[in-house]
């Protein structure tokens, strides 16, 4: 069932959502960057901004995530899980990020299901805008995560000019549309066709922007990427871990207790498999002491058939953020290409 909403009615809808919870959207900072932030009024939402470099996973998996409160009273301790059940609406996000959050949710739903994460994701409504123009560095078409989605969103908007088509993908999406009572109407046949045409056009316009996952997946999964190639590539990696920070599907973490006024807050901290210390054991032994093995690990986790069959999706949503953020030259498209060709920079 598809709905439509006139563009000039959207701010009314957002104002209603602001009554119900936090509304998060890309906004421009004084420095000129675009960041997902909480908005206080519908007027703050600008619809034609580039996708922020920093993904919205921040709102389900904060970089520093308080999970347990530990209070001390003499020798005795009381522990309590920290709950964040705030209702949040993520507005003007994109297909790649919707798939990213869906991926993270699947990871944290796997037995044993992580209540800390799920409390946040269960209360987060994803209102995405389908991409009618591919972004310069994206390759979502290769990872089945865009430019338009057929699932995983709560509500998917398509810009039809004067109005948005609104596809509802879940009960949360339905409820969100219901909140905008009177602002939505049933979409017309023409509007639905228009949306299909826009998707087709968008898919066609990717052109050369492809990332040969299938071939890389085969080679990685069967151990056919030679050590010397990983070695060579690893010379072009500066171990910044930026890829892990901005990747919508990365979720590795560490756990540490933060002291606060005589008690502690146990926090989950974002971590990176690219750091040498990620696998460093207390004994000093490190199974991935060499950077080439850490690189190999990253791409195995993202692109292998073994993980694909475990997770039901490849660990990449083609958003292109790693291409921007890589301090060296070893982002996903570059590595996948090198694996396919069997050489680096030749």
């Amino acid at each position, binding site marked *: 069932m598809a709905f439509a909403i006139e563009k000039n009615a959207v701010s009314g809808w957002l104002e209603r959502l602001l009554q119900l919870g936090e509304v998060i959207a890309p906004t421009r900072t004084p420095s000129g960057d675009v960041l997902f932030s909480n908005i206080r009024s519908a007027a703050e939402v600008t619809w034609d901004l580039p996708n922020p470099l920093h993904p919205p996973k921040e709102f389900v998996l904060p970089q520093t995530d308080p999970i347990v409160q530990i209070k001390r009273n003499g020798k005795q301790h009381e*522990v309590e899980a920290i709950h964040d059940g705030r209702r949040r609406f993520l507005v003007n996000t994109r297909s790649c990020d919707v798939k990213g959050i869906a991926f993270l949710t699947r990871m944290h739903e796997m037995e044993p*299901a*992580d209540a800390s994460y799920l409390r946040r994701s269960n209360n987060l409504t994803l209102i995405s805008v389908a991409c009618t123009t591919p972004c310069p560095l994206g390759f979502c078409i290769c990872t089945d995560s865009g430019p338009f989605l057929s699932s995983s969103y709560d509500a998917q908007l398509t810009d039809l000019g004067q109005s948005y088509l609104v596809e509802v993908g879940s009960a949360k999406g339905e409820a969100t549309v219901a909140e905008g009572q009177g602002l939505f109407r049933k979409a017309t046949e023409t509007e639905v066709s228009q949306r299909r045409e826009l998707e087709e056009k968008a898919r066609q316009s990717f052109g050369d922007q492809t990332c040969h996952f299938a071939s890389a997946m085969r080679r990685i999964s069967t151990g056919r990427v030679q050590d010397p190639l990983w070695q060579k590539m690893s010379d072009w990696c500066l171990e910044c871990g930026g890829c892990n920070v901005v990747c919508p599907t990365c*979720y590795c973490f560490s756990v540490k*207790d933060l002291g606060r006024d005589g008690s502690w807050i146990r926090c989950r901290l974002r971590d990176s*498999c690219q750091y040498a210390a990620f696998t*460093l054991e207390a004994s000093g032994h490190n199974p*991935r002491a060499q950077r080439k093995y850490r690189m190999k690990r990253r791409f195995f986790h993202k692109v292998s058939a073994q993980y694909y069959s475990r997770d039901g999706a490849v660990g990449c949503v083609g958003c292109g953020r790693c291409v921007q953020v890589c301090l060296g030259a070893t982002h996903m498209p570059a590595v996948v290409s090198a694996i396919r060709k069997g050489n680096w920079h030749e």
Partner: protein
Amino acid sequence: MNDVFLPDIARLADLCDETPDTRTFRLRFRDLGKGKDFHFLPGQFIELSVFGYGEAPFCIASSPTRPEALEMTVRRTGQLTDALHKLGEGDEVGVRGPFGNGFNVEAARGKDLLFVAGGIGLPPLRSLIWNVLDERSRFGQVTVLYGARTPADLVYKRELEEWAKRSDVEFHVTVDSAQPGWTGSVGVVPSLFKKVALHPETSLAYVCGPPIMIKIAVQDLVGLGFKEENIISTLERMMQCGIGKCNHCAIGHHYVCRDGPVFNCGQIKELVD
């Protein structure tokens, strides 16, 4: 969904120094109901919280046949274990678990069991050894071969004496370098193989210890006719969550905290990162 990071509170009930840097901690859950509900398999581990520092994984060194004596044997290697060693009886720690696959005790019934341990590798096996000894009639021959660098580095010294005295256990101990007063064997643990009659076809071998010892022991056992799938060991990896989510312990798409830490040698060969 669960609050998977929320620990239960336990108190240190007994502390026993095994070596200058290794101590056995006995734990008792503050909530007795939780204590009764804590069922585990030998070979499983817990995530132990030292409040203010964080958590670390430690194998359960006691047997499920003795639930009142939940024990871990911990060596001082870093910030957290340093802090743990500073705690005393009655002090509180946090416990999450049990985690991991544990040893397959059922599969060992009726079999001859060979335990090969070196240094701090004995604690994980001790859990299974006492499980077996507490149900002695259900298992075949029990052979325990143990060694450490020096006599001072041997853990569970009193229990070793007990095992040596038992007629239903064949027990041999060795050290790499002797000290005055040492009357036992001198040499690496695998050098004890020649002292015992082994029956590879009816046996399961459990090997735990420093990597080099495991390597030689496994080599020797295979040479003596043991099949790789009948030689069982435990893998160690840096761990944080213990539940397969933080990714620190991943080897390929396997997670040592969930698919392990117990693996047989055939499986270990297949584990490719």
